Every structure is written in structure tokens, then in C-alpha cells.
């Protein structure tokens, strides 16, 4: 249906580029320190991880959904794709009876855009269908971490809280274990069968929901083959006769050719996120750790490629091929891309559909296409797998049994698979009110565009998929891109494990993001970055390495 927050990396990617404190790749891929003592319970240590058989005991039984079969099944870690027309009249029901009791409860969730009023037609329709009564506390997604940190430190935590992995920085990761309840009594093993859509969430994603030795998070599954996509203006490339660059050097020389400040055209925006892919740099946070072929455990900033990627990005800035507003980090690169002021920009998977749909009416010539990520020397790239889930909804400790069951009913509804009435309601709202059907394709109207946004899709999701009934071709291209790129995918030693670092290391790596921004723009020297890396090692990085070594020895490697 539409860019569904569930599908692949679109959730994390919705975070505005403007306000990013965490690189989106890192958001998807890393930045999610997690948890617990091996097999511990509430009283146990808050850092560490749970894996293997200990983890399996905590997981819900997997019961595959039998609704719609994707035309493009998942391959190489990609999302699945639905490209054929759905018969809207013959949608099946995945939630035959209302599971909620109608008792009121509160959900806090990040929201990008302007939240609709409470009690709007969309929320009412969803509540009526799911048997719930939700009070939404929508908070600005761009500054959600600040809010979350304060709310978790208060004594009035909302009943259900959506926590994106990229916000698990500082001490917040540890707080998750302390403040949210073990859902095992409601979901472990066969108990999950009461909630068939939750049972159909893949076990890899559920495993990421283990915090502090207990199953606490209801996951939003993501495709491991999710990366930041370097998008280019295919229409302008064709018109100018540019061929798509195939190596780091080629990109630079193409960019110099394509830039004309006089004509107000620059080759690209800030390509740092793409550089991580080109040079094979791992994400930040727990997926940044890997045991190399030489048997040594290293963090991303210790990879030689880390500096190479930064140097390449700096070359782009130095050459003047990056739009000045991107250099100043002002405004929205996506708008400059659609306006033709930049020809390449990087964003997450969701921009492919988002920009296509946005420009379809006003700019019929506009064609957005994802560039294949090339290796720096023109060979095959090394692309590090994203974690199978990176956004969770959690239920506060001390919530009543009825509240928990209502919250799970809401999550179960939100996780309805493609091709069901529930999915349609969650993604499009009510027919006639929020959308109309034209030529068998649902099209949202203004009310739909303002009310059917975020909220319910954040609670849970089925296994990653792409489906855009209005632009089925985009869904196909997205899946194919992931499958092509997925062929170069490698998993880190920490893949598939929800790991929480000890809080004494919470701020160890916090300086790097700003340092990267400053270095590529010429406001810091290479020696400053090298200095930061050696400071990182001496002020805790080496000790953190020992901690990871022990953790991997105990839990086995994730790759």
C-alpha cells in the first residue's frame, strides 16, 4: 500500500535529515545498544545480550501468515514486494474479532509532520475496528530523544511507548530495561497465537526485542539489506547524456563536470552516508563491532576505510560539487533534488516512492532512480547488514493486565499483513473519508494525507515488504535494488543480537558524529579525527573491546 513504516528501513529513515543526530544508516544499522545479562530477569544486569537457546526460550512461536503471497519474494536479505493489483473488494480479515476491551490507554510515539487532532476520523475508525481506546501522545520525531529521556525519568510513563533504536544513546538504553515490562507472560511460545499477526513477525525481528534478558519490545521488522540509497535524477542524466558513475573517482570527475554554480546546479548533496557504503564502513553503535579475517575485533572508527570514506567525502566538498546549502546544512536536500539544484542525494528507501508520488502531478518528467552502490575502486562493495529490527513499542512496567492486552491488540492490528482489511485501514483510513478508489487503485484525499500519517504504523509491522498500488513499478525497483545490493551483504559479529553496552561507555563515541560533519566540510583536520580515535581507544574503547570480546565468546558470533 503506501510507504509503510514497516517496510525495510523506511521507519528510521523518516527522521528528518535536517535534525539528524544519528546518521540514518546508523539508525537502521546500528545505534541500538541493548541489553542484558545472559538470561537474566528484571533484577539482573541491564547490559549485555541474550542469544542462542536462551533467547529462543523467550520468543513467540512463529506462525506464518497465509494471506497474500508476494510476487517478489525476499532474497539476499531484501524486503518482499507486491506489484500486482490487489482486489480491494476481496480483502481478507486477519483480525476476525476485536481483541481490545475498549479500556482507555496512552501511547507515546514519534511523529514527523503535524499530528492530527485527537478524536479524528482515522483514530476513531481504528479504535472501533481494533476494540481499543487510544490516547495518542504524538511527539516531534526530530527531537524525540530529548522528550523520551525526560519522560523515562519521570514517574508518569505512558502505557505504551514507541522507541526507535537510534534514540538508545547515553543512558536511555539501560532505562528501557528498567522501565518496561517483560511481555513473556503474554507472548512467549504458543501464547502469541492469540495475536496471529504478531505471531507472523519473523523470529529474527523478535530476537531484537529482548532487552535485559526478557522479551520487552514488539519489533518493527526491517530488511537486513537496507541501506542508504544514492538517488539520481534519471531524467536529467538521460537528457545530458551522463552515465552513472561506477567508482569513487568516476563519481568525483562526473560531479565536477555536472556542477555549474552559474546555472544553480550542483552535482550532489552531502554524500557522507553513501560513502560509508562505498568504502564498506560499518554502522555506528553495536553493529560497528566485527571480528575481521585477521581475528581482531575492531570498531568502525578503527577501520582504515573509515578515514578513506571521510577523505573522499571531503574531496567532494573541496571540489565545490556539493550544494552550498548542504555544506551549511540548511534546508531540505530532498527539495533541492526535486528542484533540480542537485542531481544526486542520499536518503533511505522510502524516498523512492515518496518523491515519485510527490512529483507525479506537478513534474511529469521527474524520474528518480537508485544508483547501485559501487566499491571504492569500482569493484564489488562490502555492505554491512542492518539489524532485523530497529524500532520497538514497549509497555511500561506496572501496567494492568487489561492495559497490556489492549496494547497488544493494537499492535496486532497494526501488524496486519498486506492484502488484509486491517492493513488497508491502517495505511489508507476509511474509504470515502480518507481515500477513493480510482481504477482499482486507492488514492488518499487531503483528509487522508493529514490524518493517516504515522501513529498506528509505528506500533508493529509485518515482515518487511514494499507495495505501492499506485506505483507498482517503484516497489519492484526497490526490491530489485535491495536484492542486487544484498548480494554484497556481510553480517557483523554482532548481527541479530540486541546488545546493551554498559552505561559507563555511554558517551564514549558521542563526539564522532559532529567530528565527521566538521571534517568533511574542512572545519577539522585529519589529525583531529586521528586524535579522537586514539582518545577513544585510551578513554574506554579498548576496555569496551574486551567487553565485546567476552560477550561474543559467550553468545557466539552473529555472522
Amino acid at each position, binding site marked *: 500500500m503506501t510507504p509503510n513504516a514497516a517496510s525495510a528501513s523506511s521507519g528510521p529513515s523518516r527522521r528528518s535529515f535536517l535534525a539528524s543526530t544519528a546518521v540514518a544508516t546508523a539508525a537502521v544499522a546500528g545505534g541500538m545498544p541493548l541489553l542484558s545479562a545472559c538470561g537474566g530477569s528484571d533484577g539482573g544486569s541491564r547490559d549485555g545480550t541474550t542469544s542462542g537457546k536462551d533467547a529462543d526460550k523467550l520468543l513467540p512461536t512463529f506462525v506464518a501468515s497465509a494471506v497474500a503471497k508476494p510476487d517478489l519474494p525476499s532474497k539476499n536479505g531484501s524486503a518482499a514486494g507486491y506489484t500486482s493489483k490487489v482486489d480491494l473488494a476481496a480483502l481478507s480479515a486477519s483480525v476476525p474479532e476485536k481483541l481490545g476491551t475498549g479500556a482507555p490507554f496512552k501511547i507515546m510515539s514519534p511523529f514527523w509532520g503535524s499530528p492530527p487532532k485527537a478524536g479524528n476520523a482515522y483514530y476513531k475508525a481504528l479504535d472501533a475496528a481494533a476494540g481499543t481506546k487510544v490516547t495518542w501522545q504524538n511527539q516531534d520525531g526530530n527531537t524525540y530523544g530529548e522528550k523520551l529521556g*525526560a519522560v523515562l*525519568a519521570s514517574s508518569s510513563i505512558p502505557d505504551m511507548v514507541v522507541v526507535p533504536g537510534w534514540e538508545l544513546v547515553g543512558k536511555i538504553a539501560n*532505562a528501557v530495561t528498567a522501565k518496561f515490562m517483560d511481555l513473556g507472560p503474554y507472548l512467549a511460545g504458543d501464547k502469541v497465537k492469540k495475536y496471529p499477526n504478531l505471531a507472523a513477525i519473523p523470529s529474527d525481528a523478535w530476537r531484537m526485542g529482548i532487552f535485559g534478558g526478557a522479551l520487552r519490545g514488539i519489533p518493527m521488522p526491517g530488511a537486513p539489506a537496507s541501506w542508504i540509497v544514492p538517488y539520481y535524477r534519471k531524467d536529467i542524466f538521460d537528457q545530458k547524456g551522463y552515465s552513472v558513475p561506477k567508482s569513487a573517482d568516476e563519481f568525483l570527475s562526473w560531479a565536477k563536470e555536472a556542477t555549474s*554554480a*552559474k546555472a544553480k546546479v550542483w552535482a550532489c548533496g552531502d554524500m557522507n552516508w553513501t560513502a560509508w557504503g562505498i568504502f564498506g564502513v560499518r554502522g555506528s553503535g553495536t553493529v560497528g563491532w566485527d571480528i575481521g579475517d585477521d581475528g581482531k575485533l575492531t570498531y568502525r572508527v578503527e577501520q582504515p576505510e573509515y578515514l578513506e570514506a571521510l577523505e573522499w567525502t571531503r574531496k567532494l566538498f573541496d571540489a565545490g560539487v556539493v550544494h*552550498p546549502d548542504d*555544506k551549511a*546544512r540548511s534546508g531540505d536536500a530532498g527539495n533541492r533534488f526535486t528542484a533540480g539544484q542537485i542531481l544526486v542525494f542520499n536518503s533511505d528507501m522510502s524516498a523512492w516512492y515518496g518523491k515519485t508520488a510527490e512529483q507525479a502531478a506537478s513534474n511529469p518528467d521527474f524520474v528518480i532512480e537508485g544508483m547501485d552502490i559501487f566499491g571504492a575502486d569500482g569493484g564489488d562493495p562490502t555492505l554491512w547488514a542492518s539489524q532485523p529490527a530497529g524500532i520497538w513499542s514497549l509497555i511500561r512496567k506496572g501496567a494492568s493486565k487489561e492495559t497490556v492486552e489492549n496494547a497488544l491488540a493494537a499492535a496486532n492490528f497494526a501488524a496486519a499483513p498486506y492484502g488484509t482489511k486491517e492493513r488497508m485501514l491502517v495505511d489508507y483510513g476509511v474509504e470515502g473519508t480518507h481515500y477513493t478508489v480510482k481504477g482499482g487503485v486507492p488514492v488518499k484525499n487531503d483528509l487522508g494525507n493529514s490524518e493517516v500519517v504515522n501513529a498506528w504504523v509505528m506500533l508493529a509491522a509485518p515482515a518487511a515488504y514494499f507495495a505501492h498500488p499506485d506505483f507498482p513499478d517503484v516497489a519492484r525497483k526497490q526490491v530489485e535494488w535491495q536484492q542486487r545490493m544484498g548480494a554484497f551483504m556481510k553480517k557483523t559479529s554482532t548481527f541479530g543480537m540486541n546488545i546493551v553496552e554498559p552505561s559507563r561507555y555511554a558517551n564514549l563515541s558521542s563526539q564522532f558524529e559532529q567530528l565527521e560533519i566538521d571534517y568533511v566540510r574542512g*572545519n577539522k583536520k585529519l589529525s583531529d579525527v586521528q586524535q579522537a580515535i586514539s582518545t577513544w581507544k585510551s578513554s574506554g574503547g579498548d576496555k569496551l573491546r574486551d567487553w565485546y570480546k567476552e560477550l561474543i565468546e559467550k553468545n557466539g558470533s552473529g555472522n
Partner: protein
Amino acid sequence: MSLTAGSRPDGSRPPAAVEEPTAAVVTAVVKDRVPGKAGRAGKVPFRVRLRRDRALILMTLPVIVLLLLFNYVPLLGNVVAFQEYDPYVSTNGVTAIFHSPWVGVEQFSRMLDDPLFWDATQNTIVLFLLQLVLFFPIPIALALVINSVIRPRVRAVAQAIMYLPHFFSWVLVVTVFQQIFGGAGIIAQTLEQHGWSGFDLMTNADLFKYLVTAQAVWKDAGWGIIVFLAALAAVSTDLYEAAAMDGAGRWRRMWHVTLPALRPVIALLLVLRVGDALSVGFEQFLLQRSAVGAGASEVLDTYVWNMGIQNGDFSYAAAVGLAKGVIGVCLVLGANKFAHLLGEQGVYKK
């Protein structure tokens, strides 16, 4: 300070005629018709004063409550500067204070050893001095200019134009500057058309301090003239007429009449500004942080925000904030003393 009579260090009761406040009190007391001894000399019993001033006290009460609630109570939270505070260790952030370990002055010694802290301090001081020299005199000059405009219509329009930018948010101000002075802005495009390339004022770290001062002038200088205009309005026209009669020209009148009239206000604002020296702005710097790099844009306030809110290192951030506060108090006291030496009232007097 000595509005309460009898508070002299030597304990002697001052003669009523000498101490101004007492004289005022006497008048007030007489008005309220409080009988007896209270009216005699400086000593007015607390209860009497309470009853006499109850209307005034009631009026200030809401503000005092707000002040206590949002300024003084949170001050207590500064104790975390002496802890390794973890807000999540207990059921809520307040009780967490009682469960967090005490570390003495460790956060402060960490601060003194932190080069980033010194960078931020240096930027803050440089920006303060620049603002003092380049910003502070401008509203005074503007007020004099506006004051010399006779036609009310012209005056109103000019004032409105000058006030307007004050109501823009910093996001807007920065965006406007980006559109004009940025690498893809109007000036850069114009120069580009004439063969000069590479103009980009917004990402130049060396000029950043002048850039932000210019932004502050554009946004707030117009607003700053209000208080000076009020002071100018209070100058009796008799003085100007008398000076003119004596043959004083335009400049002499300004020098001998206008400026002396403004002097107490200037001194007061200067003292306040100096006391606030370490607060040079926040949003403005946060928004432009990445354009010029943290090295040029980090000031103490953004540093505290980054450490505390962004990184969750609350104790360290509290320590830096507390240090900033203590230095601020010292600056106010010093500047006030200086104002007294110049014969001005300053913020308060002894």
C-alpha cells in the same frame, strides 16, 4: 538594600530625616493612617508593613510563585553536579538524585581538563566582547536618530521596520541570511553571473563571529531602542530650550542634555549585559553549528545542552552550568561596583 530601617550594621537607628526610604515609608504610613509609634521614626513593625503593603504584595505574589517554582526550586537540582547522576536509577528523576553516587568535585576537575570546555569558553568571551563593541552602541544611536525625527508618521514607520525582525525566529533569520549570503544565495549568484565565484559567507569559520553579531544586530537592535526612547521621552523639553537659548547647537545639546539623561539607563543595561556575559545566544549557534563546525560555533550554552540533553551526561553538564552561573554572579557584582564608582545607581545600591 536598606529598605528595612534599622538594618544598619551598627544597629543605631538613623534619624528619620536622613534616610530617604524612611521618609517614603512615613508618608505611606500616614496615608494608611496607622496610628501611634510606627509613624514616629524608622521602626515600622513587620505586621504593620504587611498590612499596609498587602495590595502590593498580593500583586507580586503570582510572579513570586512562578519565580520560586521555575527558577528557585530547579536550582536545587544543581546538586547533581556533585554526583554521577543517573536519572533512570529510581522510579523518577527526582528520587534518582538520592540513589546516585556522590563524586565530590570530580565533574569540576574534569571540566578544567576538558579542552572542549575551554574552546567554548573562549568563543563565548570573544563573542561577548564583539557584541559589546558592535551591538551595544547601536540601539543607542538608533534611538537618538529616531528621536530626532519630528514627523510622527515617518517615525512610526521607521520604528515598525526596525522592530519587525525581533519577532522572527532564529530559524527564519538564519534562513534569510542563508538565502542572501550563502553559497547559493543572491549575492553569490550575482557575483557568479559576473565571473566571480566562490562567495559563501555562511560556511566561513573565520568570519562566523562577525556573521552572528550581524544577525543579532539585524534581529534585535531595533527592539533594543525601546528603553532608550522611553528615557529620551522623559527629558524635559525645557532643558533643550534653555540650552538653545544659551546658544548650544545640535551637537552640544546632545552632548550636554541628551546623553547625560541616558546615562543611568546605559549604565544599568551595561551592568545587566555584563552579568549576562556568558550567555551570548543559544539557538542561533545550535542552528549554524554544522555550517562552520563546532570549533567556531560552540558556546557555553550549546556545550551544556550537547553534554546534558544530547549525550545524557547530566552531572557534567550541570557542573559546567553551575560554573557559568557562579562566574555570572561575580561579573554582576563587579560591574555593579564599577557603576557605583562612576556615580551611577547600577542594578541595586547599598
